[in-house]
């Protein structure tokens, strides 16, 4: 069982995918049951996976029983396990919300796309092969296109179109980069690439470095780094809430890829490109953060604001990666958990608010009082505090961990300025939107809002409540992230584990 563990999180949603195709005739009810059951199973599986990964060893899985670097390997380490768990957690919440809001009735194939999206995500998190990462990127992108556009509508279509085109350009760049790396180093396995980085001749260093930075651009698109993030606001702001919530993990795929690929390839032990990417990521992260904060401030609608908030959280994460110490990485991971879950919650909440305001939707202008304004308003306050990084919720602790880690960096002044100014802008902006949404009541207009169904509402609530949980359990959680960061810091172990795994596991 454990020996096959690494493949299971990929297989489960794929099996769900084709089962759902067969269940098409059985109606939506059957599809919901399959989708929910297998997502719940995935959550349990990933909990087990994380538990198993935290024992410290790398699970290297040789697909087709071909050893690295010849076959494709899956590498289950603590970081991958964390991402898997986060994904499945989010997936379950978002799925229940989607079903609760009858989103799956608004178009065809919602559940299949959803499961295959998980297939793509999990594959991207587990694979140890650069080209295979490309393939899974494409899987998760294409699934995300479908989900993003699910339900239709003008702005959704426009945002979706931009998202698709930019990512297609990104895919082309990915192939240029992978091709070049293969053309020089002759391999595709990430560990093997890193291994070979050590012996690149001086004549070839420039070209390898160019390809690796091109790869950074590709991941930068996914991660939404300045100036590559322009797809994000339009896409996230206009898709359905449940999908946007699931997409909170999407930008993290880019971040993950940077940590995984560049963290390994550019590692001191690995070669000459030591930490070439970190200053770039840091500086661009700071610019992204400030622009995102301005975007939050300037937003004309709540969902747009939330999209920029997501961008801001991604930027904060990037700063942590740019600082590039074990401490900073650990801080970033804590922040990653927080921002993923709360970002998702925020999209759901924005939906709840938009529903409650009826035809006024999420536009930031005064509207008639909404039903349950006090409860929703309190939750908004709660969520705003969490996402803006105000105490006492998880965002604050993530931010403090990062700021603390930043003290060791030579750009500490700039990092502090960026993070603190952005925080202030977020606070001002959230106060503004909160006060417009909940305080500025237009008593003249007709109120036609509706309350979100209980299922959906409770999912949003549960997700939000994970923020205080993250605060109370900050100790154990940071212990985990530290352990992950320390594992990541030892790229040599990763490379050894992958390249030394012998084939014919079944014969043992």
């Amino acid at each position, binding site marked *: 069982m454990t020996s096959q563990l690494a493949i299971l999180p990929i*297989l489960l949603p*794929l*099996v769900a*995918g*084709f089962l759902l*195709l067969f269940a*098409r005739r059985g109606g939506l009810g059957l599809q919901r049951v399959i989708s929910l059951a297998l997502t719940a199973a995935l959550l349990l599986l990933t909990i087990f996976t994380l538990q198993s990964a935290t024992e410290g060893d790398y699970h290297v*899985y*040789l*697909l*087709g*029983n*071909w050893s690295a*670097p010849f076959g494709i390997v899956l590498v289950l380490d603590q970081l991958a396990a964390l991402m898997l768990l986060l994904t499945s957690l989010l997936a379950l919440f978002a799925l229940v919300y989607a079903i609760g809001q009858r989103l799956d009735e608004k*178009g065809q*194939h*919602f559940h299949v796309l959803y499961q*295959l999206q998980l*297939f793509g995500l999990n*594959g991207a998190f587990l694979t140890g092969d650069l080209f*295979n990462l490309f*393939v*899974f990127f*494409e899987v998760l992108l*294409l*699934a995300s296109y*479908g989900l993003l556009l699910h339900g239709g509508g003008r702005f959704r279509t426009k945002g979706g179109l931009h998202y698709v*085109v*930019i990512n297609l*350009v990104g895919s082309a760049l990915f192939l240029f980069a992978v091709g070049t790396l*293969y*053309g020089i180093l*002759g391999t595709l396995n990430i560990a093997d690439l890193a291994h070979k980085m050590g012996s690149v001749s*001086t004549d070839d260093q*420039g*070209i390898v470095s*160019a390809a690796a930075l091109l790869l950074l*651009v590709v991941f930068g*698109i996914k991660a939404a780094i300045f100036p590559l993030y*322009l*797809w994000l606001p339009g896409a996230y702001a206009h898709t359905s809430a449940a999908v946007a919530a699931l997409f909170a993990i999407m930008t993290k795929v880019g971040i993950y890829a940077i940590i995984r690929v560049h963290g390994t390839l550019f590692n001191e032990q690995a070669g000459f490109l030591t930490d*070439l990417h970190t200053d770039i990521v840091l500086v661009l992260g700071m610019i992204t953060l400030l622009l995102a904060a*301005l*975007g939050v401030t*300037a937003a004309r609608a709540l969902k747009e604001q939330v999209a920029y908030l997501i961008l801001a959280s991604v930027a904060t994460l990037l700063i942590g990666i740019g600082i590039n110490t074990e401490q900073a990485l650990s801080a970033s991971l804590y922040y990653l958990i927080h921002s993923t879950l709360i970002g998702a919650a925020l999209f759901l909440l924005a939906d709840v608010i938009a529903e409650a305001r009826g035809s006024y939707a999420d536009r930031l202008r005064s509207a008639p009082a909404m039903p349950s304004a006090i409860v929703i308003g309190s939750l908004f306050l709660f969520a705003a505090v969490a996402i803006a990084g105000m*105490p006492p919720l998880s965002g*604050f*602790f993530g931010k*403090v*961990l990062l*700021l603390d880690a930043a*003290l060791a960096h030579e750009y500490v002044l700039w990092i502090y300025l960026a993070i*603190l100014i952005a925080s*202030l802008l977020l*606070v*001002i902006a959230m*106060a503004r939107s909160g*006060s417009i949404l909940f*305080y500025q009541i237009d008593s003249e207009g007709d109120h036609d809002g509706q309350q979100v169904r209980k299922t959906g509402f409770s999912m949003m609530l549960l997700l939000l409540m994970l923020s205080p949980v993250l605060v109370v359990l900050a100790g154990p959680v940071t212990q985990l992230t530290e352990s992950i960061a320390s594992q990541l810091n030892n790229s040599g172990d990763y490379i050894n584990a992958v390249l030394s795994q012998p084939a014919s596991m*079944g014969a043992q």
Partner: protein
Amino acid sequence: MNLFAFNLPLIALIPFLGAPLAAYAAKFSRQASAWVAALVTLLSLALLGPIIHLPFDNQTLIQSWSWLPSLGLDFAFRLDGLALLFTLLILLIGLLVILYARYYLSAKDSMGRFFAYLLMFMGSMLGIVLSENLIQLVVFWELTSLTSFLLISYWQHQQDARDGARMALAITGAGGLAMLAGVLLIGHIVGSFNLTEVLAAGDQIRQHDWYLPALVLILLGVFTKSAQFPFHFWLPHAMAAPTPVSAYLHSATMVKAGIFMLARLFPALSGTEAWGWLVGGAGMITMVLGAYTALFKHDLKGLLAYSTISHLGLITLLFGFSTQLAAVAAIFHIINHATFKASLFMVAGIIDHECGTRDMRQVNGLLKYMPHTAVLAMIAASAMAGVPLLNGFLSKEMFFEQAVTATDGNSFMWAIPVLVTIGAIFSVAYSLRFIHDVFFNGEPVGLTKTPHEPPRFMKIPVDILVMLCLGVGIAPMILVAPILSVAVAASLQTTPPEFSLAIWHGLNLPLIMSFIAMGIGAVVYFNRHKLFRWHDETLPRIDARTLFNMFLHGLLVFAGKVSRLFDQGSLQNAVSWVLVTAVVALVFGFSQFDSPLLGDRSLLSVDLLTLAMASVLIVASIITAYMHKRRLVALIIVGVIGLIVSLGFVKFSAPDLALTQLSVEVVTIVLLLLALFFLPQHTPQERSRKRLTRDLILSVTAGVSVMMLAMAVLSRDYAPISDFFIENSKPGGGGTNVVNVILVDFRGFDTLGEIVVLALAGLGIFALLQNLRLPAPMRDIDGREWNHDPHPPIMQTLTRLLFPLMLLVAVFIFLRGHNLPGGGFIAGLIAAVALISQYLANGIDWTNARIKTDMHVVIGLGLMAAVITGIVAMMLSYPFLTSAFTYVKWPIVGKFEIASAMAFDLGVFLVVIGATVLILVELGKLSHASHQVFEQERS
């Protein structure tokens, strides 16, 4: 285990737990909510009971739990004299405010919300003063900003309440962030965030390079919170809050949080020149400015607000002196100010409540309407003015004395007593105004109702506070000296200096300063009208709220501009950025190392065929770009490019690629034609020449970059892992076509992902096309009607003839794929093309009637086949997708190979057929719906 091992955190947390209770209780009655609030406060007080003696025994109680060890953040609380003093102030004045608010709030105000907010605020304040850990302290610090935002904006329907609250949040929130940064710096210097260590490390901190930034950051927090110049302007606008809130937050608690920090970090930060200038300077300016401005406020609460600012400045100034005795005076004045100012706010609230206005130009001669209140107000105001026998006098004398002592040493320091006296003069003047203008000065003007005494219970808090003013003023050594002493000891972290709280110190300079202040203050007040005129005429009217709103608006506009300057919602813009970044990345990455662009691998010589194909490709590519406005023509030329690319693949030893490219090419053309039908046939003129030039430059740059990249690689040698595939293809994978073995075996997992992509494309497109309606053009570009023959018979007949042939070819390509060019992909595409040719030639309905298979199911079966193949290996406890093959020999047929990879390839085959047919046929059907639309529109 001692139950009281938890009581410090409980004291701070119980109000938070009580808040929802108070809100909930309001469902039952308005009283209930107030009762809950009061009981919660009493409970916190009760928890303080068992440990209240500790500070007096010179003990510091610390209760601490590990929370976030990697950060050095403990869940840690501390009770010493200073904490005790503030805890008592917060809880006791809180209790009085609760009582007062119970009667103050009107029937339409939500009690539950008010008391819930108030309790949360109280908890936050308690958290600040009881924190042992500095990060935890910042947590509570920011919580006071948040909860005060809620309290100030309590009357949310009022624009000024919302604005005031936002301003307070923005300013104090910003200060909190600075404070956080400062605390982090200190923690870094000391190596701990715990006060015990920090307070003991004063010298270390002061000598550190980061001392000044840390100090400035922390003072930013302090000054914003305590409304020190130049951050004082938010406080008057926070007066839009209900008066109980002002009485609590803006006299006794929140604004004192900053002061508390000065007292708390005094041993760690004070004593340097920087401290003196920054703290003293801000305090001095604030004190004088506040006192001066207070006189000109016609609004009672406005006057009190500026008075508060002034007094806070006074306390800050005292800390700025850095001496121990100044600290004593400061802490003493904290207590005194809390008592008289809270009572004055309550009085202002009563007047507002009874008169319906707080404008002193309307409110006159209240003495005869509400004598009891008037007496209380006059005593409290006298304390504020520093009249002897009242508590304000005592601390003010100490303050004067410190101001005079500070003159030592520096020749410019004579300015201090002078400025202090000027401040005191205005202080007397506005206090006089509070008494004279409200309670005397003729009859009220234009009141809507006749004022009378408020309910008895509303006055009780004022009674108590005023009694305290008197009591402390008369018997300071008994009433206040013990707590003051321990508070000072805790603040200074040493035995407190000798101090005496005597009323009479003899006729000394401070006393003379007091008399001067009172005398000139009275003169100033009674000449106020001239002064008001002068003030109105000469000084420009700057309203902080207007300014702040302008700032916010400006910020909004700026944010909008910057954000939309970059994010224009334009795809072209976004893609340009991506491409520019990519080129920059390439160039930058390359230039990081001193590597030559080209390597020294020997190159092949050009042959005629390649030259011809390359010329075709180059010309065709450029022409496609050049002629793209004629869409159909561009599409045809793209078709040629695809064809020549496949030829190139053949030429350069990649037959599998050529086959795939050829099939995909045709399917793509069909696909684009299906779509083009619904799109304009021509592209309109572009927007601007500038844009075209820019795009041209960008595309040429991209092209050259890619070309150089390609050349850089092609001119170098490499050592690929591929030899392994060539060696193991036959023995390990059972096939001689290495490309195919890679696809279905070595890297079968890629292929699995790839067919999922194809499946997703099919399903996603299917979903997109549901309910899509597009007008189908009835005429072609030149305005001709379409040909009326939908299925030319010759085409029909021969295409049907070809169908079995193509299927046969598909099977052929499929079966040999493992050993010769071909395989599931190509076979799938050929079969799909065969089916599509039938749809093209015979129409959808005709063909569908003959192919009854649901393509969704075909896709599902394909995926299943591929997955099951992999899972079978897992069941034999091999990894997923491990392949097996064997040669069997049958009679007649002979020896042939059976490979599990074939089953996998069959999955691929099915998915390719299913997805391709699904995509094209669904797209083809689009015209059906559209024709129907047209017919409906016509009829």
